[in-house]
């Protein structure tokens, strides 16, 4: 089954391009390194997900690129063409000449409606080219204007157009002190609107990815391209073919649908965070070896101690005994224990059948109202991913995004109390009431996750 990706704004287009890069490289390597049927199926399945074959025999991405300025899109198209492996479909992009100027309202109220028809048409064309549509993956940042504002509007259009298809939003959250002063406003508006529309929101925070680049990948001068590579790696490790049942040959036919059914089991809880292990620079990778018990032990501790990185994990945090009610909530706060609603573990690589993920089934990890068997799923694949002999990725619908979300809303609320910058939004049609509605919606989300 195929996934149509929709890249919006500067960030969305850069991350989207990296993702397709990772996916195609990985698929080609799989075929090369594993000549049997296995490699072939993996290769065919991976490519069919994200690419279609054109009449000329070239691979074209099932992707639509949208931005309000041409620079980034031109760059993405040129880079893809240079890869010699795939390209973007002819005319499958839409761009204008002037950006949204960091203004969510401009993207949502002006550019969105203005270009709705053109954009929706591009998506429809791409969707009709899929034999079977698994879902739509939109990629954007929440901080700027085009990705966040127009992305939200387009998601709304797609929801109307495809009421029964899965829409997964990949969101990049900005650095806490960032390049955009009004980023917290833009984020609040994006998240609150998407919460009504999306089936699930997969979140990467620039701050945590930056740390991975600095401490695990040992990159001295971290650029946005380094950050996007890490995000693409993590996303790819989820979206590449994997077996959801038990037998290796039967790769999941709908990655987006299976992902949603495993993780987004309640309309109140849609925020999905990711962590992956291991991350290391290619130079040290050659000298490292990993064991499944070691990887899973780290990954589990990263989950319960809410660390997004294998370095600096707090090993003191442990799963609390299962208790009921208020008493439990208080204790959790003290221990900084991260309660999950649902988790999805994806294992890739050698001897994957020996990996024992039983430790993730501890009832103390989860909310009281969902049994661990329902809350935890494992996917696996024998194929090593992206050069890593063994790798594990965990997507978690848990409290881990609570703290950054809470900070974001808090800062935006402080600013809103002085009504600073509001005039920039009202002039394009976002009123104070709209802001209040958004704040209320997100406070509700915060409260729900806090009580998990």
């Amino acid at each position, binding site marked *: 089954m195929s996934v149509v990706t929709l890249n919006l704004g500067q960030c969305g287009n850069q991350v989207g391009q990296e993702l397709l890069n990772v996916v195609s490289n990985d698929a080609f390597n799989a075929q090369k390194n594993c000549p049997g049927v296995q490699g072939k199926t993996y290769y065919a399945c991976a490519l069919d997900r994200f690419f279609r074959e054109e009449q000329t025999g070239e691979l074209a991405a099932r992707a639509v690129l949208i931005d309000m300025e041409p620079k980034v899109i031109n760059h993405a198209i040129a880079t893809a063409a240079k890869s010699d492996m795939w390209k973007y479909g002819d005319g499958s992009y839409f761009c204008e000449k*002037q950006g949204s100027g960091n203004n969510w309202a401009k993207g949502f109220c002006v550019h969105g409606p203005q270009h709705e028809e053109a954009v929706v048409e591009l998506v429809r064309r791409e969707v009709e080219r899929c034999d079977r549509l698994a879902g739509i993956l939109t990629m954007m940042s929440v901080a700027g204007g085009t990705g966040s504002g127009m992305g939200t509007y387009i998601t709304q259009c797609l929801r109307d157009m495809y009421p029964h298809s899965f829409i997964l939003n990949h969101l990049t959250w900005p650095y806490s002190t960032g390049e955009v002063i009004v980023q917290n406003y833009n984020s609040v508006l994006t998240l609150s609107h998407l919460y009504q529309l999306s089936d699930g929101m997969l979140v990467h925070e620039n701050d945590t990815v930056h740390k991975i680049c600095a401490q695990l990948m040992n990159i001295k001068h971290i650029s946005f391209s380094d950050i996007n590579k890490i995000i693409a790696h993590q996303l790819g490790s989820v979206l590449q073919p994997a077996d959801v049942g038990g037998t290796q040959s039967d790769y999941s036919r709908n990655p987006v649908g299976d992902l949603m059914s495993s993780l987004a089991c309640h309309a109140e809880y849609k925020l999905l965070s990711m962590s992956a292990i291991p991350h290391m620079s290619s130079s040290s990778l050659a000298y490292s070896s990993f064991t499944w018990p070691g990887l899973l032990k780290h990954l589990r501790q990263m989950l319960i101690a809410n660390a997004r990185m294998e370095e600096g994990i707090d090993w003191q945090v442990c799963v609390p005994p299962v208790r009921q009610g208020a008493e439990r909530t208080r204790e959790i706060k003290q221990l900084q224990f991260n309660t999950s609603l649902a988790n999805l573990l994806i294992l890739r690589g050698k001897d994957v059948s020996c990996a024992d993920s039983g430790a993730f089934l501890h009832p103390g990890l989860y909310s009281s109202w969902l049994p661990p068997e329902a809350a935890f799923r494992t996917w696996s694949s024998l194929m090593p991913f992206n050069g890593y002999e063994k790798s594990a990725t965990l997507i978690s619908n848990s409290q881990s995004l609570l703290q950054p979300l809470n900070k974001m809303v808090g800062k935006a609320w402080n600013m809103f109390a002085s009504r600073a910058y509001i005039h920039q939004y009202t002039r394009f049609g976002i009123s104070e009431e709209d802001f209040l509605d958004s704040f209320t919606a997100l406070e509700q989300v*915060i409260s729900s996750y806090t009580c998990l």
Partner: protein
Amino acid sequence: MTQSIIVQVGQCGNQVGCRFWDLALREHAHVNKKGIYDEALSNFFRNVDTRRSDGENSDITGGKIRSLKARAVLIDMEEGVVNEILQGPLRDVFDNTQLVTDVSGSGNNWAVGHRIYGPACQEQVVEKVRRAAEHCDSLQCFFLIHSMGGGTGSGLGSYVLRLLEDEFPEVYRIVTSVYPSAEDDVITSPYNSVLAMRELSERADCVLPVDNQSLVEIVNKIRYMSHQGKPGHVIKKDSTVISGQGGACGAEKPFDAMNNIVANLLLNLTSSARFDGSLNMDLNEIAMNLVPFPRLHYLVSSLTPLYTLADVSVPPRRLDQMFTDAFSRDHQLIRADPKHSLYLACALVVRGNVQVSDLRRNIERLKPSLPFVSWNQEGWKTSLCSVPPVGHTHSLLALANNTCVKPTFLELKDRFMKLYRKKAHLHHYLHVEGMEQGCFTEAISSLSSLIEEYSQLDATKRMLTPDVPRLTIAT
């Protein structure tokens, strides 16, 4: 790629504008060695084929540079300065379709510029601006350059601002205003400035105030440094910041050095729109990020390095010094001390060989010493442009929305009141049709309320403002 149009009004506006075009050409010539008309150039210049005989020059996109025309409209009610430009080395970048002139001047009277010349020139100005706009395929921004003290710049300049707003409501308006110094030779300059300020407060997206006194001090300090002659303290001869040497214009005129500084401000401000960089700042992001309240759009600017030393290598210490200097009093283009006032927001426009990590390190280093308003503790906007100014390895333009502009406005108000109480020179203004005393009271109360808005924000400084209680959700 977007385009911008520069509208230069009055003697001062045209002189500053002239320096801008000279330096911009030089900068592009330095980067663009092959003489190709590229996107960077298209921002402020058209490429036309002047050999065509059918009158209207058509634009050429791409290819070799044929003949560059500035995207500019030159307006003055005297002919002197504009004629000088047209006879000077820059004559080829302008043509007659871009000029609006008259012969008699505004006599340092805002009312003459605004109420007489404004309506009289309206049609001409609109037509010429529209023609310039038609040559753009995505016009983003107008840059208005004028002075506040005289008659034409302040009176007609503020009238033109209104025209731009009416005719092009979607296009951003960034105004560079040169404020008179206290010892100004124009006696009515306080009237003119206050009357013009009302228009600026209502109609501009951003105003970059610059004052003559600071420019004089900066220029003097540069001269002093360059004549000191200590080894290692030699100012680079080819630096665009301090001199027009090497540009198209040969001999320096009296105000050239000062106007150069202002031209550099515009050059750096637009650098990110003209050249590539790892972190671009679009012009429409400036107001969005720096203007929290509609009237508080006066941005204090500072340029570094100003007192360039002829060092080839750039140790990180010197790079950090550039950031430190940007916040010091003697690098500001108006007399103001941002460090001891309150920041509402701050943008750092960096050019040259500087990394994101350098930027982050310096922000972290300087943040503790800079008071920011409680609701915008992280009010930084940054941009990185890979092309440095000619003769430099790196440069920084800091734009601060800071309450430190208040003293300048207070002083202006005092000088206005001194004249107004005695009704001095008032009759010159009231002669002009449609000019009533009400215009004066409205203008001064507009200024007073602006000052009051800054004072209220200033009062929150160093106050421990607790977080605003959040909305609570019934569970």
